[in-house]
């Protein structure tokens, strides 16, 4: 399973896990600092933003796990988080331009077919199937049949070359 994971998803999962852990540690250190409480009381620091970043860091960990293992919900979560981040960065232009570009790249990457396939998202291509039950085609098969096999003259499925009849469609073979 892990062998099929796209490299970009692996990188995103690792970055998200590291970011989540560092974010939690950083937020706890800040929140336990007595000077921060004084600064918050003086309204010099927005303590709500620190709690918000702590929440995002906590949320990042299960999403990272979902990315690593290819859980479908994590794809939607990743898109939602990147979308929210992009909107936030858009509101902070021109300062948030770098973050906006990164979010756009992540969203574009998550929408790629091989990435959607990893997350088993509907609409993506299915996993490669062996051509034992290949779709019927009116044209000649583009590839030669495997050794000791032939394609049924009617349904074009691969069958043993010794078969007199096709076991799938019942057509008599020449």
């Amino acid at each position, binding site marked *: 399973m892990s062998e099929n994971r796209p490299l970009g998803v692996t990188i995103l999962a690792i970055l998200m896990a590291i970011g989540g852990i560092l974010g939690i540690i950083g937020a706890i250190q800040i929140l336990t600092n007595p000077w921060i409480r004084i600064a918050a009381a003086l309204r010099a620091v927005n303590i709500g933003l620190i709690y918000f970043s702590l929440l995002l860091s906590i949320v990042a960990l299960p999403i990272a796990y979902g990315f690593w293992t290819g859980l479908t919900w994590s794809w939607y979560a990743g898109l939602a988080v990147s979308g929210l981040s992009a909107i936030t960065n858009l509101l902070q232009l021109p300062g948030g331009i770098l973050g906006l570009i990164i979010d756009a790249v992540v969203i574009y990457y998550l929408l790629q077919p091989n990435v959607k396939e990893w997350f088993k998202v509907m609409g993506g291509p299915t996993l*490669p199937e062996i051509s034992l*039950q290949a779709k019927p085609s009116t044209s000649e098969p583009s590839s030669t049949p495997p050794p000791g096999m032939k394609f049924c003259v009617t349904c074009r499925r691969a069958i043993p070359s010794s078969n007199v009849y096709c*076991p799938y469609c019942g057509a008599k073979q020449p």
Partner: protein
Amino acid sequence: MSQVSFPVVTKNINYMLMRLEKNLRSMPGLQVIRQGNSAVEVTASALGGLLKSKATVTLNLSGNYYFVSITSTPSPLGGNEALNYANVAVQRAFSTKQCNNCKKFIFLDDKYCMFCGQK
């Protein structure tokens, strides 16, 4: 190691392995690799590849029977998903029935007899 046997429907071992591979590939999260001309290796992963179990299905044609042996390596925590999947796939791929008309063995999921064309 476990071993089961099935009556020969076709002596084409490549077709037999293709049937097995197709069944295994229809199961989610498995890695399926052909090993030489008579075996298929299946790997099941959990926790992002940290817990892997492996099973190797080997076919041996002898007389009028295929002898199917399955060897497995459990995951570090003792789970053996690969073996479970391999057992199910072997049964689905190689189980046989007899044609009502010519009485020859055909695969359980075949709609038509490959020998006489009987539905």
